[in-house]
């Protein structure tokens, strides 16, 4: 019954807005799997918050209704229900190793089309972009090759086709 939903929320970029959204989730016991936020329209001072959450259909419906009730919220869209959409995540992955492991890490990075954005003689920082699955499997492979640090953005998402939200 429980399923994961990606919800896109268009909000006024004003102080406290993130606290309102996050407070709603903690206060009502909903869970947040991932959350990203940044200003997307400077002229109108709008931010887009992308939340991945899980729940039964009734809970998901409730989450959307509660989000929509917040005064600075303009739009709430359930991308999972509203047809085709794309999701991407970016991760920075630091690996420290030498010899064969170092070479293997670099080769796998190539396979995953990850970029090397920092290199020292004993370390790399890779930038990898893709679906959560792809990022997960890249990190999984690196864990055997000297993984020391991970930073992930969480999911950003958008509907397919020419329409705006």
């Amino acid at each position, binding site marked *: 019954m429980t399923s994961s939903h990606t919800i896109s929320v268009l*909000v*006024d970029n004003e*102080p*406290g807005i993130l*606290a*309102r959204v996050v*407070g709603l989730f903690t*206060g009502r016991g909903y869970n947040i799997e991932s959350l990203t936020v940044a200003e997307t329209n400077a002229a109108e001072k709008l931010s887009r918050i992308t939340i991945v959450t899980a729940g039964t259909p*009734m809970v998901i*419906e*409730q989450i959307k*209704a*509660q989000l*929509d*009730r*917040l*005064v*600075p*919220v*303009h739009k709430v869209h359930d991308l999972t229900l509203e047809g085709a959409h794309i999701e991407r995540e970016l991760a920075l992955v630091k690996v420290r190793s030498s010899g064969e492991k170092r070479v293997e890490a670099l080769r796998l990075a190539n396979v995953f089309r990850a970029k090397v954005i920092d290199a020292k003689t004993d370390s790399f920082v890779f930038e990898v972009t893709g679906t959560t699955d792809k990022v997960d499997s890249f990190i999984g492979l690196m864990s055997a090759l000297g993984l020391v640090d991970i930073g992930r953005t969480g999911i950003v998402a958008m509907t397919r086709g020419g329409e705006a939200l």
Partner: protein
Amino acid sequence: MKPEESATTGADLLVKALIDEEVEVVFGYPGGAVLPIYDSLFKQNRLRHILVRHEQAAVHAAEGYARSTGKVGVVLVTSGPGATNAVTGLTDALMDSIPIVCLTGQVPTHLIGNDAFQEADTTGITRPCTKHNYLVKAVADLPRSVHEAFYVARSGRPGPVVIDLPKDVLMNKHDYVAPQKPIEHKSYKPRTKPDRALLHQAIELMAKAKRPVFYTGGGVINSGPNASRLLTQFVHMTGFPITNTLMGLGAFPASDPQFVGMLGMHGTYEANLAMYNCDVLINIGARFDDRITGKLAEFSPNSTKIHIDIDPSSINKNVRVDLPIVGDARRALKGLIDIWQKKQPRTDQKALKAWWKQIDEWRGRNCLAYKQDAETIKPQYALERLYHHIKDRDHYITTEVGQHQMWAAQFLKFEKPNHWMTSGGLGTMGYGFPAAIGVQIAHPDALVIDVAGEASIMMNIQELSTAAQYRLPVKIFILNNQYMGMVRQWQELLHGGRYSESYSEALPDFVKLADAFGATGLRCTDPAKLDETIQQMLAIEGPVIVDVAVDKAENCFPMIPSGAAHYDMLLGPADRAARPVSEEGMVLV
């Protein structure tokens, strides 16, 4: 121009904005951060300030004012403790959807975040207990924030809004900008107009119903007196039975034969069984609260459910409904009446007749019966006699929280909306007396009675000083059983009669207490003298405390024990041992 002659400091702008919002009364308490506002208040005579004795009471008084008038209640408190003291009142107003604008002082902007004297993160603390809040950081934003706050507080599903005002913002100068009407908010757009096609579907369901019941709540009251009139008209047109929630009492006249009483945990036998057995349930402005539904899995299991609510998040929250309709109760009722009149649906008269026969049988159980003897006053009797003496006068009732509140809901009859104020959602002890003060301020000539318990009244007893200062003739009718009665009742039924900390030890002498505050105190211990005492209370012009010594062991029935279903009601003391409360039920409050 000398600075003190300028009429455009932030504080002056604020007062001007309040006057433009047609505010007449502000309930408040001064302090360092709001001194500029108090200075502005001092220099004008359009706004009346009522000085309370605790900020919580200021909010409850504003709630009483708002609920009895339909206007927005306004509160003014200082920073830090002023704001934190207001939090209980704000939460109460949020739970019961009461329009409040609460102005809080704040330390000057350059000190915010420095742990300054009397600093609290007011917007942070009040975020989950308000409909919305504002921190005004520049004087230029002040008038707009005030007008927006009033719009948000009163529109859609009403609620409390906080405006946090740093002291420098109150002292800086700017030109006043009058509010634009009608206000268009860029993101907040409540849906008040119900979908006509859905109303048609509702009428179709109702026309075919064999065992229908209306279940209506505070949303009808909040929608204004016209909504209650339309509800009454529509219920009469259909001939269906109607039950009200605690918040919805007064939206339909209690004396009407179609009224089956309040429903829920302490609702009537007939109302709860009608809910359980109905085939079409028409919910208007109620939210399937846990006090109403009892055990969710067995809540009205065989009914088609129609739910009309202005707040989409109230729909399908606890109970899945078949026909959700988002909109304002008044507009929905208008639409329903219109369609009903046009279609003239032929209802199943035979089935409805059988349904009413069944309901009358349930009514015959006389679930509110009690036995009055010559020795001790039963609380139910005290309220029946009270009602007898006030029923022909314009009266407003407030209550505290507990047994007395439920008995008041059962034994006083509410014929009109906006005459009954009780803390429903939050269940705030100490609500009733300050709320009564707010009602009395709004209706100086009306009879305002706070039905109280001896424990609850102690929670805001300091407001006797407010009542004395403004010569408010509020009557406090205490049903004194020397226990936190509802706690005691649960301890008796659920915790083996271990009355842990529920005895009201070291109570004051309420007669002397009244005297100390310049009010009148009366006491009654004898059932034979009760009428005389009530008449005496009503004859006194000033504030009165009546200390009625009632049966200490009386329990409030009927009762659906927590976790039980509607059919599983305890009707009286004899029922108690038969069904032990489930473990599942024990964890519920």
